[in-house]
């Protein structure tokens, strides 16, 4: 295990201690214990910079399940490092912010920080795993931990709704992605991304290529909230603001972007990749920006804006894949799209993070996020105003901030799309720059709404719950740091070029580089009076006109129903599934355990007997049968007698004791066959289960008299005879029909040499089949928690009544 693995797992492992610290040091905000983790990790990841800048990557491997090709391979290359720095850097700022945002005596901080650390570790795992199965595990952990974070205020209906929605949609995508991963494995026989890239050409001609591509993209699109899956992101805003700033702007939603970037070398050569990624991205960009203008809640505007900006980055990555079609690096005009994608990724994290934090501050200090109630806050909150205006101007793409530069490059890339002679793009490709331009106008409008509706205009104290004042220092540190980055990257864009952007590009477009080559990234602040500049001027002019006349044309949104068709579709889908499964369940779940047993046993008899006779599988061979002794006969008679007695027992107590007697007799069989372990286990289990029955005894109603009904007795008799017959037949058949040599010989030979134990049963349990045991005790633990929760919930409810 290397330090790299430790770094990935550190947040997960350390999260165990948070509840402990929270209990012991009640007077200290739990966030202070969490804060060092992302800071240390950030510094640690910075040390990789010199390596990745030289175009090298670091790979560390742990064997996890080597026999299945599942290895925990951690790989740091340009792309992975960029994301790792974002996750830990923004993570540190968010934790710092949350310390002041979440009150220590009101909130369940122990929950919050455990979820947050789980998320951080999962996210690091996603971006630094080279093995796809391991990455998939971390990927689902991000869905899971974000579910917990969105539902953090779980007593609110909306939080639960949002959490469920995000979980269902992202997990659906995750499963699709797993399908894609398996298809890739079928094609290549490897789970390693590095090896997949080296086999890219072979995959391209495989029949499974297109299904795999679609599956992987489904995973990326659901995670990165692309159209039509974006509907979960606005609802996810029910999470506390630090979470929104972290998950829904800087990290989790970018996992899809990461996935697309990571798989570009594998799939990018195909036309379908360009088509799907670019057009879905552009569509999301336009759609998100138009609907952001409609929103009145600060966080809702930001949510739709995030959707739209993610679409922008996505479309850039799609356009950048076109670079793979051209051999020569120097004249390749499409690499600019990839540069813009990475640059905007970083920029978006800085300005959107600061804007979310500012929205949180406004909510914290005024008690509302509704722009119809806000206004004129500039004088009360000058620092928040300054950070917001810088963030919003950067988002709108205004100079001199970093958003301006990446938006100019975005225009450049979109204009280049029309020049592509590959896929008939010279005819209909004009759509791309036009749509990009329209979306940018709306982006400008909502950015202006965001800052001017809140901070200028009329101050309406009667609509606010609190008297607004500037936030405390602690809340301001993080947004101020982010905003300074916005300015620094704006004035010195090439600060990032060599250190982060060029290495990340080398990971996305490796086939374009020869040995020792690297991408020459130069982002110029002033690029002359070209078409992009005129597009920007147009954005500003039309944007100002639209913003000024905003109140007049906003009415057209009334034509759009409050709940959009997609959301209605989602809701009716969920409701439909629920009502159908409810009806289905109603038909067989009638509350009587007897009926369930009838179904289970009837199913068992029918299926097994049908297979046994349909496949003519029954064989009976007496050549290998050992002799039957007196003891066996005696014990069999005892078991049979005991079982028959249960049928005639009149009280429940008698049946339980008789059942125990049958169990004890069975354990005597084990003694006879020299299996002391089994005998011991059976004895103890019988004892405990009889005791458990006795405990339950008080709660059960008196034994009801079904027995008088003839039909009832007939079904019971049929089922019991049927089960007995089928089990006997299978046992005989299994004994006479040995298709494979018995595995027991392997254990006899290896128990002592491999595991140094003499007790084969125990060695199998803890060593040879230890993974089974591990999961079995996990299942047991979950079952016991289930019983605990079920019964205690009922108790509490009864108390409330």
């Amino acid at each position, binding site marked *: 295990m290397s330090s790299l693995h430790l770094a990935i797992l550190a947040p997960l492992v350390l999260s165990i201690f948070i509840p402990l610290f929270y209990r012991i040091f009640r007077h200290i905000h739990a966030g202070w214990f969490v804060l060092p983790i992302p800071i240390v990790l950030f510094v640690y990841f910075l040390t990789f910079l010199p390596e990745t800048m030289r175009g090298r990557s670091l790979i560390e491997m742990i064997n996890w399940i080597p026999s299945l090709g599942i290895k925990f391979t951690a790989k740091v290359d340009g792309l992975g490092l960029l994301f790792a720095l974002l996750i830990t850097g923004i993570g540190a700022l968010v934790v710092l912010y949350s310390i002041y945002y979440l009150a220590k005596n009101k909130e369940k901080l122990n929950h919050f920080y455990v979820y947050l650390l789980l998320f951080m570790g999962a996210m690091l795992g996603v971006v630094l795993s080279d093995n796809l199965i391991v990455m998939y595990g971390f990927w689902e952990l991000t869905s899971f931990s974000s579910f917990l974070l969105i539902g953090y205020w779980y007593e609110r209906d909306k939080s639960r709704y949002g959490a469920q929605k995000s979980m269902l949609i992202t997990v659906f995508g995750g499963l699709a992605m797993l399908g894609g991963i398996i298809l890739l494995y079928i094609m290549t026989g490897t789970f390693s991304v590095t090896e997949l890239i080296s086999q890219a050409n072979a995959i391209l001609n495989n029949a499974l290529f297109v299904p795999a591509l679609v599956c992987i993209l489904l995973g990326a699109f659901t995670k990165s909230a692309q159209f039509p899956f974006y509907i979960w992101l606005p609802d996810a805003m029910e999470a506390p603001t630090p979470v929104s700033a972290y998950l829904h702007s800087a990290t989790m939603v970018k996992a899809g972007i990461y996935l697309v970037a990571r798989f570009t070398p594998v799939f990018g050569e195909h036309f379908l990749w360009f088509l799907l990624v670019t057009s879905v991205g552009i569509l999301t960009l336009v759609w998100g920006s138009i609907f952001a203008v409609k929103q009145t809640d600060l966080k809702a505007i930001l949510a739709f804006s995030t959707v739209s900006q993610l679409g922008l980055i996505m479309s850039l990555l799609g356009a950048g894949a076109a670079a793979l079609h051209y051999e020569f690096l120097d004249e390749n005009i499409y690499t600019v799209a990839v540069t813009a994608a990475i640059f905007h990724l970083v920029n978006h994290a800085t300005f959107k993070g600061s804007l979310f934090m500012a929205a949180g501050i406004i909510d914290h200090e005024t008690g509302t996020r509704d722009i119809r109630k806000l206004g004129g806050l500039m004088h009360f909150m000058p620092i928040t105003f300054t950070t917001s205006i810088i963030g919003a101007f950067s988002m709108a793409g205004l100079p001199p901030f970093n958003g301006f530069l990446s938006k100019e490059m975005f225009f450049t890339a979109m204009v280049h799309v029309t020049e592509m002679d590959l896929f008939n793009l010279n005819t209909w490709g004009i759509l791309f720059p036009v749509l990009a331009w329209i979306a940018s106008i709306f982006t400008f409008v909502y950015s202006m709404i965001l800052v001017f509706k809140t901070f200028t205009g009329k101050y309406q104290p009667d609509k606010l719950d609190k008297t607004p004042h500037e936030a405390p220092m602690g809340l301001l540190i993080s947004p101020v740091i982010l905003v300074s980055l916005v300015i620094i990257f704006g004035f010195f864009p090439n600060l990032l070029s060599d250190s982060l952007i060029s290495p990340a590009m080398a990971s996305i477009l490796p086939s374009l580089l020869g040995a020792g080559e690297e991408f020459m990234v130069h982002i110029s602040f002033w690029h002359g009076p070209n078409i992009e500049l005129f597009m920007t001027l147009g954005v500003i002019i039309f944007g100002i006109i639209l913003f000024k006349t905003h109140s007049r044309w906003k009415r057209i949104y009334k034509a759009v129903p409050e709940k959009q068709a997609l959301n209605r579709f989602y809701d009716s889908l969920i409701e439909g599934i629920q009502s159908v499964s409810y009806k289905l369940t109603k038909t067989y779940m009638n509350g009587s355990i007897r009926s369930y047993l009838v179904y289970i046993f009837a199913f068992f008899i029918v299926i097994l007997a049908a297979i046994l006779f349909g496949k003519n599988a029954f064989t009976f061979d007496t050549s290998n049968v050992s002799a039957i002794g007196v003891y066996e006969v005696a014990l069999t008679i005892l078991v049979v007698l005991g079982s028959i007695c249960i049928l005639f027992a009149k009280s429940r107590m008698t049946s339980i004791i008789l059942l125990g007697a049958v169990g004890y007799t069975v354990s005597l069989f084990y003694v006879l066959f020299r299996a002391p372990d089994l005998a011991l286990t059976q004895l103890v289990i019988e004892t405990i289960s009889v005791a458990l029955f006795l405990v339950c005894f008080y709660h059960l109603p008196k034994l009801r008299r079904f027995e008088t009904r003839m039909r009832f007795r007939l079904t019971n008799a049929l089922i019991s005879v049927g089960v007995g017959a089928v089990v006997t037949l299978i046992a005989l058949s299994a004994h006479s029909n040995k298709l494979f040599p018995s595995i027991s010989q392997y254990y006899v030979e290896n128990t002592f040499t491999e595991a140094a*134990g003499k007790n084969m049963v125990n060695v199998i349990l803890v060593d040879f089949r230890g993974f089974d045991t591990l999961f079995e005790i996990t299942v047991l633990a979950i079952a016991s928690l289930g*019983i*605990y929760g079920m019964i205690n919930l009922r108790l509490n409810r009864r108390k409330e009544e």
Partner: protein
Amino acid sequence: MRKTNNLILETAIKVLLFFIVLYSVYIFTAGHYYPGGGFIGGLMTAGAIVLLLITYDIKTVEELMPVNYRILTAIGLLFAIGTSAGSLLFDVPFLTHAFGDVHLPLLGELSLHTATLFDLGVYFVVVGVTMTIIQTIGEDE
């Protein structure tokens, strides 16, 4: 559970409990070589506590042994997972066990296995799970 008045059982249990628990610990430690192991040992310990529950009532036993069995289950799981993941620290696949002979003063030759730690996890989980279930159902009146 209703309080019963059973003097013989109440007197006997005080001595018996000690022996049963001791035996279950023996069974657990002997597991790698002779019949036994974490599963049976755990069940036996749980059996001993159940015997105590039957003799006295749940409240008395809870006061006598204020153990949160859910936390015990969690500790057990941590032991099992920790031992399994511990092998990764030594660059060997997940769940690879190590063993070796150690010479200790007074005790002499002793064979130590990481499998025992894993088994200890199983032991805790079994005790925790069984007692959680029995206690929850028993308390529900």
